[in-house]
């Protein structure tokens, strides 16, 4: 039996495709990476279907690439060596919310928007850490790429909020990780060998996560943003340090961009604060607004555009897609030590000028201010190949800059992965290989990544 017919025997016919339209669509994402070949698109509904697809893929030696929202913008869910794209979005059940232990168990296709709305409707006092991405992106996808969310500055990178998971291993076994491997409760992954690390940051090369438990957090009643401006990037390490010393910021961004005109040439610092009472809220406002020296000025009137941009959860970050009137952007997620911000900032602006790309330069401190995500966003026009090529070059130079400064690249696209692999300790590279070979002897899981 041919592969298509075998897939149709596993998954309902409407959700298996080798038609040119689906192959076209799933062979690219909204970022700047060139398209790559896809052979089949499949949308499973159950973990058993995923399991059967994996077993079929082993038998036929065909690659499998799992996909959540498909919005990494760096083509992580576009296969490198063809094969099956497993679009997980039909596995969209919110299985459980445990109010007292504050976690939610969701299937792999549950979107950020769906979990947010579900909590707002049934548990309005709880929230999860929501990334700066459209509501269509999946909770599981974000967690597995070590994604960030609006609670990351205060509570850590989202993957640290994983309590447990269900995984289909590359050889087809269904495996549970965390407390759920021992009991029916998905409340922690700690205090056991931390096997979750085998699946976080591996870009689907070690298995397919079908369920996950994510920690929830209290949702304060009041939320607002304070905005500061500076023209001096040297002040930024102190700014980050001071803000986190107060332990008062829920979320925190440093942003610069060339549009609209009033933003050009300035650096804006946006601090999101929360509170459960007016008193608490006002205290935070008062303390934070007065904490910087003369280099960093508090803006008494928050620009309305910032309120729109930063107070919404998720914020409408996709607005950058229209900066170049062209429906595309990609960014480098450079994870840097705090003290490297000024140099990264200055040198990245030189890259932007050299390649003349529409941009938004954003920094989000992570993990209570222990590092930052330095994220230059390059917008481009999808109808202009020359523009896309300039963006690819700018991305490459920024990748190299981040690595030169001692940083690492978050959710790196293929060229970025290669740059890191070249620099990685050889024993570490060997360990990566050994882990993969052990888990995936036939090399079917999203091959080409981390190689």
């Amino acid at each position, binding site marked *: 039996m041919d592969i298509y017919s075998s897939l149709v025997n596993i998954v309902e016919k409407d959700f298996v495709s080798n038609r*040119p*339209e689906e192959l076209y*669509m799933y062979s690219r994402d909204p970022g700047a990476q060139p398209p790559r070949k896809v052979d089949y698109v499949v949308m499973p509904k159950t973990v058993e279907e995923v399991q059967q697809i994996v077993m079929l893929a082993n038998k036929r030696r065909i690659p499998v690439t799992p996909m959540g929202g498909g919005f990494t913008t760096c083509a992580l869910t576009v296969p490198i060596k063809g094969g099956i794209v497993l679009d997980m979005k039909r596995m969209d059940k919110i299985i459980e919310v445990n109010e007292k232990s504050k976690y939610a168990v969701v299937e792999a296709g549950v979107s950020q928007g769906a979990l947010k709305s579900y909590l707002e409707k049934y548990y309005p006092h709880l929230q999860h850490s929501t990334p700066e991405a459209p*509501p*269509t992106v999946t909770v599981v996808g974000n967690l597995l790429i070590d994604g960030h969310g609006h609670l990351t500055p205060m509570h850590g990178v989202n993957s640290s909020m994983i309590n447990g998971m269900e995984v289909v291993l590359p050889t087809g076994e269904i495996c549970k990780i965390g407390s759920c491997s021992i009991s029916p409760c998905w409340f922690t992954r700690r205090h056991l060998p931390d096997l979750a690390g085998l699946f976080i940051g591996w870009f689907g090369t070690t298995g397919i996560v079908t369920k996950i438990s994510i920690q929830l957090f209290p949702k304060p009643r009041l939320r607002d943003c304070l905005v500061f401006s500076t023209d001096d990037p040297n002040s930024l390490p102190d700014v980050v340090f001071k803000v986190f010393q107060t332990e008062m910021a829920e979320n925190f961004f440093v942003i610069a961009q060339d549009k609209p005109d009033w933003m050009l040439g300035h650096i804006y610092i946006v601090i999101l604060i929360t509170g459960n009472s007016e008193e608490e809220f006002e205290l935070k406002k008062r303390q934070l607004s007065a904490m910087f020296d003369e280099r960093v000025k508090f803006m008494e009137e928050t620009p309305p555009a910032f309120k729109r941009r930063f107070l919404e959860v998720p914020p409408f970050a996709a607005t950058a*897609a*229209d900066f170049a*009137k*062209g*429906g595309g952007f990609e960014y480098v997620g450079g994870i840097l030590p705090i003290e490297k911000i000024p140099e990264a900032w200055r040198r990245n602006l030189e890259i932007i000028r050299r390649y003349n790309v529409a941009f938004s330069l954003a920094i989000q401190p992570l993990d209570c201010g222990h590092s930052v995500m330095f994220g230059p966003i390059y917008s481009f026009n999808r109808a202009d190949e020359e523009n896309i090529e300039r963006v690819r070059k700018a991305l490459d130079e920024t990748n190299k800059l981040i690595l030169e400064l001692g940083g690492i690249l978050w959710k790196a696209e293929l060229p970025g992965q290669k740059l890191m692999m070249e620099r990685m300790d050889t024993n570490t590279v060997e360990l990566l290989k050994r882990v993969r070979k052990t888990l995936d002897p036939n090399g079917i899981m999203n091959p080409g990544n981390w190689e």
Partner: protein
Amino acid sequence: MALEDYKNIIHRCFRCGYCRFTSDCSYLGFNCPVYNKYRLETYSPGGMMWLIRAWKENEIKWTDSLAKILYSCTTCNNCVEHCKFKFNSDIVNVIIAAREEMVENGLVLPLVGRFLENVYLYGNPYRELRSNRDKWTEGTKIKQYTREEFLYYVGCVGSYDIRGQEIARALGDVLLEAGLSIGILGPNEDCDGNEVKMLGEKRLFGILVEKNTQIFNNLGVKKIITLSPHSYNAFKNYYPDRFEVFHYTQILRHLIRNGRLVFPKRLNAKVTYHDSCFLGRHNNEYESPREILNAIPGIELVEMERNRENAFCCGGGSGNFYTDFFGGGEDSPARVRVREAHETGADILAVACPTCMTMLSDAVKSEGLEEKLIVKDISEIVKESL
């Protein structure tokens, strides 16, 4: 406008996906009926934009499956309403322009071709005789138009579909009961062409506009009451601006406000109202139907979670009530909508559109809810309370 005229926006969609949801920030379900059913990225509004561009740039070839994707769009305007970018108003226009190009190049699917041919030859998609167009008036006092104040334009579904005919009769009776001077075109009535336009047959649509306008002019028509929001949309937005056009709910609201329509009977019922896309999102008329229902003694109006600009389409627009590209199944839009209506605890699902009526009535049967939920047109509810 031709597809070429959209060349500066067609590549601007990022596929962020806000177009699939509602504007009240509820992301629990998808509000694009096509994406909700098929779930593949290709069936989202953004997916369609990307495919149309790929087709125009020769990155993909035209296929039956591409045509099926593009024809499955019901032109419900949910994407137009909820896309966050400035080009949002043109999303559906781009899809229609692509369909126009398919027509120009002889690439329409057979089902669509049959729909269009039937409209051209018979003046309706059902291949019914023109002479039967007013058979529904038998036993009523509804007469041919002879310079009455209002032309009562019934449309194809109201003229030929059995359930549609019942609605047409109910509304005719109500309008006469309220003392309105109305007449119909009967066998002289032709298709309004709304679906023809949505399906991209702009030449046939042009012929229908010209023909209908000429008939209206020859008969001295100044004011038109439409039974169907689809007709209302066509006349109001695409016909010459010579006629005053009303959807019937706007007229009934006016009559109620002026005391010309009073309801002596009490109807004890819990009612939920389904917004027609061509009355609501396309023409911003959300309140007339609700005001009528609220004016009827004994009716408790309850809203579905998705209402007004966030209403979920029944799946019948853009000719889908005939072509049926959704092909049934529990995720077909009408069945999803009927379940949502049932969840409100309503006894009656009220509509103001004969197309919505046919789609939702069938769905009630498919869901096995016949004993629990009745689909009624507002005109029928009004008639019962007179």
